[in-house]
């Protein structure tokens, strides 16, 4: 079957020496990044090793409940990440709830679609398929949702007087927020569209490269990559729409008021 060169820990340690170049650059050019380089590198090693061990255990146990648990933890982290990337937040539960909810709905829907139609693993919850798929979709949906929400909140804050002027002529909130909603949707959508256009020419996707390195036929690897890209595009579209429309709703009320008082601005960072 598939043949690939197994890496030893010594080989990885050798590659890690490259980081010393970055550290040296930081010291010589006084970038002040030394500490962050070390912390990020250590985080990466610890996180990836943990994920490897968890996946290995999951594959052995093959319990649907454990798979669901891991999925819940992944969505939780994605939600936190979406929250942490925003300068402005909704007050209360919606501060992280909106991001979590829209990403969870989008990623689960799209992953279920792929598992139910294209891949059909047996059993369907087989973690070897469910978890990597969800991870890919979730990561990219996260980017779209964060960008879209950030743009929505920034542009409504910035265009407050224009939005209210429109409300004052008797326009409903949907009309007054239309420009901001469209701007936010575009901001969230564009990275995915650009990624589709550039893939294979400018950059070889990491997942496809990984499969090829692991001995998969290039054409088969390409098929997987295409599937993933379509899933990502669909997931981003759904998650972004949920987040932006949900956000627009939270920014207004039943009396068609612009409720910027429901936002808090995080200072510093």
């Amino acid at each position, binding site marked *: 079957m598939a043949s690939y060169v197994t890496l030893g820990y010594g080989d990885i340690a050798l590659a890690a020496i490259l980081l010393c170049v970055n550290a040296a650059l930081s010291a010589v050019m006084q970038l002040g990044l030394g500490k962050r380089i070390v912390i990020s590198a250590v985080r990466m090693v610890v996180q990836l090793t943990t994920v490897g061990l968890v996946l290995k255990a999951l594959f052995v146990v093959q319990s649907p409940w454990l798979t669901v648990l891991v999925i819940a933890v992944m969505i939780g982290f994605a939600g936190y990440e979406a929250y942490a990337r925003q300068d402005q937040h909704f007050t209360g539960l919606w501060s992280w709830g909106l991001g979590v909810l829209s990403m969870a709905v989008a990623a689960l829907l799209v992953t279920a679609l792929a598992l139910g139609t294209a891949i059909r693993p047996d059993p369907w919850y087989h973690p070897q398929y469910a978890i990597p798929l969800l991870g890919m979709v979730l990561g990219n949906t996260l980017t779209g949702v964060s960008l879209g929400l950030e743009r929505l909140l920034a542009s409504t804050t910035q265009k407050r*007087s224009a939005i*209210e*002027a*429109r409300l*004052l*002529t*008797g326009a409903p909130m949907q009309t007054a927020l239309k420009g901001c909603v469209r701007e936010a949707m575009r901001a969230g959508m564009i990275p995915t569209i650009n990624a589709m256009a550039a893939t294979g020419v400018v950059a070889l996707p990491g997942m496809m490269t990984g499969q090829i390195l692991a001995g998969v036929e290039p054409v088969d690897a390409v098929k997987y990559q295409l599937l993933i890209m379509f899933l990502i595009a669909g997931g981003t579209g759904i998650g972004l729409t949920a987040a932006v429309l949900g956000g627009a709703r939270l920014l207004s009320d039943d*009396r*068609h*008021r612009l409720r910027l008082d429901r936002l808090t601005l995080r200072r510093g960072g």
Partner: protein
Amino acid sequence: MLALNGLNGPGFGPIDARVASGSCLAVMGASGSGKTRLLRAIADLDPAAGNCLLNDTPRASLPATEWRRRVAYVPAEPGWWAATAIEHFLDAAMCRELADRLGVEEAALGRPIEELSTGERQRLALVRALQFEPEALLLDEPTGPLDARTTELVEGEIRDQMRRGACVILVTHERAQTERLGADVCTIVAGRFDSPVNEAG
């Protein structure tokens, strides 16, 4: 008639007032005393407790969109959502005529908003509000950025609106203006009227 019953929100109120059709209530007071917040609350732009009635119809019984056309608020610094003024009007011919009455030359209506003077923008925002023939007008310093001649034109228009039957709440810093408009004057201090207005009426 526009009636405010115990209207209150963050930083102002409770406020009771009655403004009869064809009359003007001038609200005076220091910066930060709550004048703008009061007008925003009447226009239903900010949540507020208490009640507003237009000709005995409670605000809550009307959709907010309809209320804002009938009770038109013109902020001191009005906003614009399109590139030129003319795009903000439903009936271009009617608005051209209104703008002309207020001394705004016709060419200004097609120029980019940023190129207009503060005074032109202020008067065009008034035109934008008047196109719905509102029953009540909430004007926040409508002549603040205007010279003597255009101030006179705007005050003439306000008087015309009152003659038409509109009730006007006017925020102003000019005592003389309140006299020229024959307005009842009340002073707002720390968000409250320092003396009750027309409470008997």
